[in-house]
Every structure is written in structure tokens, then in C-alpha cells.
């Protein structure tokens, strides 16, 4: 099976390498964290604060994030190569064999990505460590000399290969819809997550002390993230339908098409939005916990920065890298769509207009879901929040996130359209 996976990889290498960005970023992240942790461990004295969690925890949270978000990359590639995978099935490959073929290919991309990530880390570790030192101080992060440790290179690659292989096997079964128990399994998980989320939320409302509610908020946050992962898609689906119903019947030629496109691409959009919503929720939850529920007299800014590094930076970096990877992978599909639209008379300006409206609709969805999550988190602990806690953050943060996503995606799409037009114009000139 491994040999067949390698042969399949050779044939679709271009497609896989298009999505390599997220793997390079993950390779860089774990190389940086491992090198940092190993080097600091040698230098540590017992009196100092222990900085190891700053390096170990992002590795852990980054790995978990990669495990989940990677399904988007696999889904896009499997969709592009669906005819080939269907043929594998016609010729007698069962679900286990196909998922191994996909996992082998994913592991190879993970391996190449982590090698490149390691190289990037070698050039960037000193400057990033210095930046961290400026934020946290030399008590937490003492002066150290980073050296190349060959064993770490092997560990980084093994970690990356292991996560990619496991995620490949599990996600490909789900994507190819060849896991017969999948439907019931998903339902059971949804019920468990909903119960956990409701119970933890009710519990925190009944708590009377601020310290206790701070501890319980962690638990609510944990269940809420699972809720968003396993039930978020269905909720976004309902909200998108309501959104489309509320919009006027005639939104102009590009507007009407944009709404239709969001309906056709609904499942892909939901896949793209969930990781961003999860990271937004983690950031808001941490802000509430560190600024809203902490004693303002004993607030330690360094501790707050460390907490953000531990919990947020790795998922945030991986989610951004994943968004870029998926956008790159969708380029051929986009080009096909541009071709179809231009053949029926869409100009370059109309295409940019239509795509911007589509992204605006999705960004609004992102804003609304994030806002609902934040309002919920605010209300369950509002009695314990200190006066200094700025409630505007409930709106500001989702606005910033959705605004940033809107701007990044519009810029990427505009570049895509311009590149496509440029390519096509050149092609037409050659043909003439």
C-alpha cells in the first residue's frame, strides 16, 4: 500500500505541494518550540520561572489544531482527484486501503513541509527569541545560544509524519463517506458535546465567587470549542439561510450571483469559517479570563502575554496558514469559475465586485457567529466581571477578525482574478 501511495503521490505531487504552506508553518512551529525547550532546559536554574510551557504547550495545541484543520486540505485535494479515488474503489480498494493511500501522501507532504520548516526555523529562531525576550523579559527567557541539534530534526519530522498519517487515515474515511458508522458516531458526539456545554454553562451561572467562575470558564470554553467544531456547521447553515432570506430579492446582477454562489459553496464556506470562529472564541475567552475575572491590582502583564503565547499563538498561526493553503488549493477551481463567468460576459471589474460581495456575506456570517459566542461567554459570567472589563471587546474582536478576513480574502481574490486575466490575455495573444 505504501508503494501505491508513493506512486499516487508522484502523479499528484503538484496538487499536494500547492497545499504545503500549512505544513511548512507547522514544521517551523514545532522546530522552534522543540529547539527552544531543549536549549532552555539545559540552561535553567531552579530559582527561575519555568519557561518550558511557553514552548511545550504551543506544540501541543498546534498539533491538535493541525489535526483538525488538515481535513480541509485533504477534502480539497480529494475533491480535485475524486475521479481517481473512485477508480481505486472500482478496482477493489476498500476504505482502509484508500485512506492509507491518502495518509501516505499526506505524511510525505508533512515530511517535506517539516524539513522546510526546520530550515526556516534555523534562520529565524534568534530574532523571534529576542522579540519574545522583549515582551516577557530575561527573567523568564534568559540569554541562550541556539545550536543545531540533529536529533531534533528527526523528532520534528517524526512528529509531523505521525500527525499527518493519523489525520489522513481518520479524515479521509470521513471525507470519502466510507465509514458506515460515521453518521451515528457524529450524532453521539453532538449529543455528548451539547450536554457538556449546557451543564458547564448552567454550573458557571450558579457559581457565586469570582475565582471559582474563572476556573469554570476554562471548562465552558473547552465545551464551547467542541460545540463549535461539531455543531457549528449546522448553526452556520441555518444562519446563512436566514441571511439569504432577509436580503432583498434583487441585489443587482453581481449581488444575485454572489448570493447563489454562497448557497452552492455553503459546505466549503462552513469548513473555512469554523477554525477562525474557534480561534476568535479562544482569544475572547482568554481576554475575559485574564482581564475580566482577574484582580486588577494583581494583574501581571507578562503573565498575560505568556498565557496568550501558550494558548493562542499556535492555533492562530496554524489556522491562518491553513486558510492560505486552502485558498491556494482552490485556485484551479476558481480559475474554472472565472472562465465560465467571463465567457458569459463578466468583465474583470464585475468579477472582483461579485467575489467581494460573496466574501462580504461570509464575513458577516463570521461576525454574527463570533458575536453570538462572545455575548454568551459574557452573560454567563457578567456578575463576576470587574468594572474595568471593557464590554466593547465583545463587538470589537469579531469586527476586527471578520474585517481582517474580508480584507485578506478580497486582496487574494483580486490578485487571483488579475493573474487569471493576465494569463488568459497572454494565451489569447499566442493563439492569435
Amino acid at each position: 500500500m505504501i508503494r501505491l501511495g508513493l506512486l499516487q503521490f508522484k502523479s499528484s505531487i503538484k496538487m499536494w505541494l500547492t497545499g504545503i504552506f500549512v505544513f511548512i508553518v507547522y514544521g517551523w512551529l514545532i522546530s522552534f518550540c522543540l529547539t527552544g525547550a531543549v536549549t532552555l532546559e539545559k540552561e535553567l536554574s531552579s530559582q527561575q520561572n519555568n519557561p518550558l510551557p511557553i514552548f511545550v504547550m504551543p506544540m501541543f495545541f498546534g498539533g491538535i489544531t493541525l489535526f483538525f484543520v488538515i481535513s480541509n486540505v485533504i477534502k480539497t485535494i480529494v475533491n480535485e482527484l475524486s475521479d481517481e479515488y473512485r477508480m481505486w474503489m472500482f478496482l477493489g480498494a476498500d476504505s482502509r486501503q484508500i485512506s492509507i493511500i491518502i495518509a501516505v501522501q499526506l505524511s510525505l507532504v508533512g515530511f517535506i513541509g517539516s524539513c522546510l520548516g526546520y530550515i526556516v526555523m534555523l534562520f529565524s529562531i534568534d530574532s523571534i527569541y529576542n522579540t519574545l525576550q522583549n515582551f516577557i523579559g530575561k527573567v523568564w527567557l534568559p540569554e541562550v545560544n541556539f545550536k543545531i541539534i540533529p536529533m531534533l530534526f528527526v523528532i520534528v519530522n517524526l512528529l509531523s509524519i505521525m500527525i499527518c498519517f493519523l489525520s489522513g487515515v481518520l479524515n479521509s474515511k470521513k471525507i470519502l463517506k466510507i465509514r458506515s458508522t460515521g453518521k451515528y458516531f457524529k450524532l453521539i458526539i453532538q449529543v455528548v458535546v451539547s450536554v457538556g456545554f449546557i451543564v458547564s454553562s448552567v454550573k458557571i451561572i450558579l457559581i457565586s465567587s469570582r475565582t471559582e467562575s474563572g476556573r469554570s470558564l476554562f471548562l465552558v470554553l473547552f465545551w464551547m470549542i467542541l460545540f463549535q467544531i461539531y455543531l457549528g456547521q449546522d448553526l452556520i447553515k441555518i444562519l446563512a439561510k436566514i441571511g439569504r432570506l432577509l436580503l432583498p430579492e434583487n441585489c443587482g446582477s453581481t449581488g444575485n450571483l454572489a448570493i447563489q454562489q454562497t448557497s452552492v459553496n455553503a459546505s466549503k464556506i462552513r469548513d473555512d469559517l469554523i477554525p477562525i470562529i474557534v480561534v476568535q472564541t479562544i482569544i475572547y475567552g482568554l481576554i475575559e479570563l485574564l482581564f475580566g475575572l482577574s484582580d486588577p491590582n494583581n494583574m501581571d502583564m507578562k503573565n498575560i502575554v505568556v498565557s496568550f503565547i501558550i494558548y493562542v499563538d499556535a492555533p492562530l498561526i496554524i489556522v491562518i496558514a491553513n486558510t492560505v493553503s486552502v485558498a491556494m488549493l482552490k485556485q484551479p477551481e476558481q480559475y474554472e469559475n472565472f472562465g465560465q463567468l467571463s465567457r458569459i460576459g463578466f468583465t474583470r471589474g464585475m468579477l472582483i465586485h461579485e467575489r467581494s460581495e460573496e466574501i462580504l456575506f461570509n464575513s458577516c456570517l463570521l461576525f454574527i457567529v463570533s458575536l453570538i459566542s462572545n455575548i454568551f461567554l459574557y452573560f454567563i459570567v457578567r456578575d463576576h466581571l470587574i468594572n474595568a472589563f471593557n464590554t466593547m471587546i465583545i463587538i470589537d474582536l469579531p469586527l476586527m477578525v471578520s474585517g481582517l478576513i474580508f480584507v485578506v480574502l478580497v486582496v487574494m481574490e483580486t490578485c487571483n482574478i488579475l493573474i487569471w486575466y493576465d494569463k488568459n490575455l497572454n494565451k489569447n495573444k499566442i493563439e492569435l
Partner: protein
Amino acid sequence: MKIMANKVTKVMGNKGNQIEILHGIDLQTSSGEFLSIIGPSGSGKTTLLKCLSGLVQPTSGTVKIDNQLLNNISERKIAKLRRTKISYIFQSYNLLPALSAFDNIVLPLRLSRQRINKTKIYQLMNSLNFKADLKQLPAELSGGEQQKVAIARALTMKAEIIFADEPTGALDSTSRQIIFDQLRQLADSGVCIVMVTHDIGQAAQTDRALVLNDGQVMAEVNHPTEPLLISAMNETKKAII
């Protein structure tokens, strides 16, 4: 090795916009029989072939292969059936572009972890008059050579049933005859072949022909000849008019 289809129907489309493509088709074949299915475009030939071969689930009715019911068969069992007993030959040459000709031929054996005898494969390809290199990828082979690879795959895995959908449809006349002759030889050696075709000349060389129209079997011709099939097709047209 028998195929038994009982009142097979197939409905396609979304709610409110459904079309019944097959209307209760009954069919039986036996080992060593070469069955052809002919009919105009849109008559449901390919859909019937897909239902018979387990590529598509019928909406109602049953399909059995060697007394094994294909409706609701587990994914693992159908996969095993595909790598041990059933083989497909399509017009669009169902070869994996990632694998060389040789790897495509031995794929079912590899998937079921059987030993591969290289010499035998090379001998087989010589007997099929395969002129290209077995290390070449499908994209580097001509249409005729690609179909020979698909036939070699069926032969290597000792398929008991071959489902062929317009297997010579995209080939030149010489390759068409070579491929058809190979299928005929396979049927004579005991393999059951179900072939969908537009070519009345080829259908006339099979053991039995079904004339399909609008998802129904309009005529069944044993030991068909070209005039018999043409008249059956014409009668079908008249009956519809």
C-alpha cells in the same frame, strides 16, 4: 457465476424533479455467456450496467451476483468482489493515471495481497499483441493499448464477470476488432461478459442481445444477427411512435 436482476428500477434527480430511468428490469446471465445491451442514447443502458455491477444501487428491486445480494452489501465485501470476481472495461479506459501499465494490471492482486508472477504478465501481454512498454503510464499509451491493459487486468485477476461499457467506442477499426475478439475469447473460456454497445455489428456476434428503450427491455434476441437486431430496433421505434 450468475447475475440475477429482479424488477430493477432506478430513479434519479432531486425531490420534485425525479425521473425513473429503469422500469422494473428482470435479467439473468450464466457463466460463459456474452450478453450485449443495445438501444438508443438515453435508453438506460449504462445505468442498467452500473446497477448490475454494483457501481450504483438500484432504487428498488434486487441484483445478485453468484447468489450474493448486492443491495446493501458491505463496503468491504463489494471491494473484495471487485478485486476477485468482477472486472470493468469502460470506454474511458478505467486505468489509474498514477500507475504504470504493469502496476494497473496487477493492482487487484496487490490489493488482495496475492503473489505476482512477472513472467506470466509479460507472456500474457505478448499474447494480446501489446506493443508498448509495460513501464509506461496510461497517458503514454494509445487507446487500443489501454484497453488491452484493462483486459489483461481482468485476465490476471481471473475475473468471472466482465462489465464492459462501450469498450471499443473510442478505438479505430483495427483495435476495435482486436479488443472485441479478446472479449469473445474470454466468453468462450467461461467468463460472463455483459457489454453495452451502440455497435449492432458487435452485438450480432454475442450470445444474446437485449434491446433497451426508455428504461425497459423491448426485445431479447438469442443468437442475434445484424438483420434480426435491426428489425428489433425498428419494431421498438414503431411501437413507441
